[in-house]
């Protein structure tokens, strides 16, 4: 009983330690605040957006930024601010779901490769080499083309193309912990392999996975926007990339239609990168010089 409490206390103290280091990093805090704001915007999109995203008002098309429409309106008289706000929801959903998928598969595959080694490792890693021989965006584009346009398919495409990155990180970290005494101890008391990976290896390699995931969400947002920009998303939904793509023909006269969705992409990716960089430094103080 007392042991349990001690473990609890130690776990919490490590978390607090990382948290403290993170808070000392001004840029990371900035990223974190931005990220929280962006997530809140996504959650409360209905409350924040003054208009529904598909509300068309033909009496006010191509308006520049003004009081009624802070970001102006588009060619259908739709309020761009509302569309960008709803777009937050869509982009974050695509990025988080696809990332969760690829993290799950990547962790399992990478841990298996790292833990078992030998022929299984060789097969899995050669397969990763093959996947990585195709540039990631090109990979995502070709998978999305195969599956056909649509947000779900874009999500699957992004998820698949991100798996090898995760698998590599997880494999490398697994290799560093699998020969530790506690793994050996677990083996000696007869834990199943699945249990060892889940309970002993995974918690100890969590740090690099979290960092990879944070930075990966940013990449996923950019990938999703690029796929939509190329017309592989859903044109009916206010996705940021699709909005930029639709506004391209009006670049000469109504640049605000392009500027604001792009700024939204940039800010969300920037916040994730700031936060991810800070997290990496906080989780591994040796790296920070």
């Amino acid at each position, binding site marked *: 009983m007392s042991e349990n409490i001690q473990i609890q206390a130690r776990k919490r103290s490590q978390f607090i330690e990382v948290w403290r280091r993170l808070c000392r990093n001004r840029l990371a805090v900035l990223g974190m605040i931005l990220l929280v704001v962006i997530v809140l915007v996504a959650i409360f999109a209905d409350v924040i957006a003054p208009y529904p995203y598909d509300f068309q008002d033909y009496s006010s098309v191509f308006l520049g930024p003004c009081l009624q429409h802070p970001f102006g309106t588009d060619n259908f008289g739709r309020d761009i601010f509302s569309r960008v706000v709803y777009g937050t929801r869509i982009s974050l959903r695509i990025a988080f779901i696809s990332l969760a998928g690829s993290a799950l598969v990547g962790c399992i595959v990478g841990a298996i490769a790292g833990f078992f080694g030998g022929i299984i490792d060789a097969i899995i890693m*050669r*397969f990763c*080499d*093959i*996947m990585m*021989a*195709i*540039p*990631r*965006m*090109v*990979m995502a*584009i*070709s*998978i999305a*083309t*195969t*599956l*056909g346009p649509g947000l779900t398919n874009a999500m699957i495409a992004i998820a698949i193309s991100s798996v090898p*990155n995760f698998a*590599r*990180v997880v494999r*490398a970290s697994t290799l560093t912990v699998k020969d530790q005494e506690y793994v050996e101890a677990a083996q000696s008391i007869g834990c199943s392999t699945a249990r060892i990976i889940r309970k002993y290896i995974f918690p100890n390699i969590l740090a*690099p996975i979290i*960092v*990879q995931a944070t930075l990966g969400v*940013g990449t996923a947002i*950019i990938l999703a*926007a*690029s796929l939509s*920009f*190329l*017309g*592989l998303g859903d044109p009916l939904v206010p996705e940021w*990339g699709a909005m*930029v793509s639709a506004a*391209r023909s009006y*670049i*000469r006269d109504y*640049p605000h239609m*392009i*500027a604001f969705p*792009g700024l939204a*992409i*940039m800010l969300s*990716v*920037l916040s994730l*990168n*700031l936060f991810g*960089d800070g997290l990496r430094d906080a989780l591994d103080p040796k790296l920070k*010089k």
Partner: protein
Amino acid sequence: MSKFIIKRILVMIPVLLGVTFVIFTMMYFTDGNPAQLILGDMATEEQIHELEEEMGLNDPFFTRYLNYLSDLLHGDLGTSYVTGQPVAKEIMDRLPVTVRISFCCMIFAVAVGIPAGILSAVKQYSILDNLSMVLALVGISLPNFWLALMLVLVFSVGLGLLPPSGLYGFKYYILPVVSISASAVATITRMTRSSMLEVIRADYIRTARAKGQSENVVIFRHALLNALIPIITVVGLQFATTLSGTVVNEQIFAIPGLGKLMVDAIKARNYPVVQGGVFVLAFIFSILNLVIDLIYAFVDPRIRSQYVRKKNKRQAETDNRKEVPA
């Protein structure tokens, strides 16, 4: 050395074979019947069946894969659904432009990124360092298609300094190259800075300074050469980013390259062209990786000697891998 090159090329072959398998599998599962797509909506059921039979679409998966592979070895990437021309020819017509642009991008990225990174590291925490780090962070956070449009907006529409589209001379390259390579410049700057910072604190740098070596020699000969390996790794990885970037951005600048060909093909559901383009890009990327590996051996005598000695070869390979940052 030649032995190493040959070995490295032999390693490339199974990877490329795997790439063909992945691409073929994707093509196999693509929705839409190719025979239907070629003949159009007006075709009768029999015509479609006939063409399916003729194209071997009813054969089993592996028969079709082997056929595809043997076609590929003969330089046949299939026939474009839209123009009816061989895909290989269409791609080869467009490829030089894309290669030229990617090449310019990488030169630009290295020429800006490495000096900026060195400067940031040498003058750590100065205004210059902070500025370039902020710019680099913004650079990796920008979607390059949006940056391209913003550059067009400012420099073509607004100031009228640079042409917004086409490719007829030096001026036409500036906007595409800057917009495509922005994230590569940013990544290389960040990597150069952190790698230099790691090296600059080493004892041999202090020794070099102590013996009265001039600062330039210390930075460029003693520090940079030792910091170069991770930088080269990142430069190699950035080739992927620039190749992908050209695919997206050629569309914006109306550059008649491979990327525009592929994007147009996506819109027209002209799958053989898309898959052919993917294969060619993967092929180029693999060759570039090979070149990067050769540069490693060229730059780092430790790696070179390990490759020469046969029994240490495996070790060197794993060491190399470890140095690739996640």
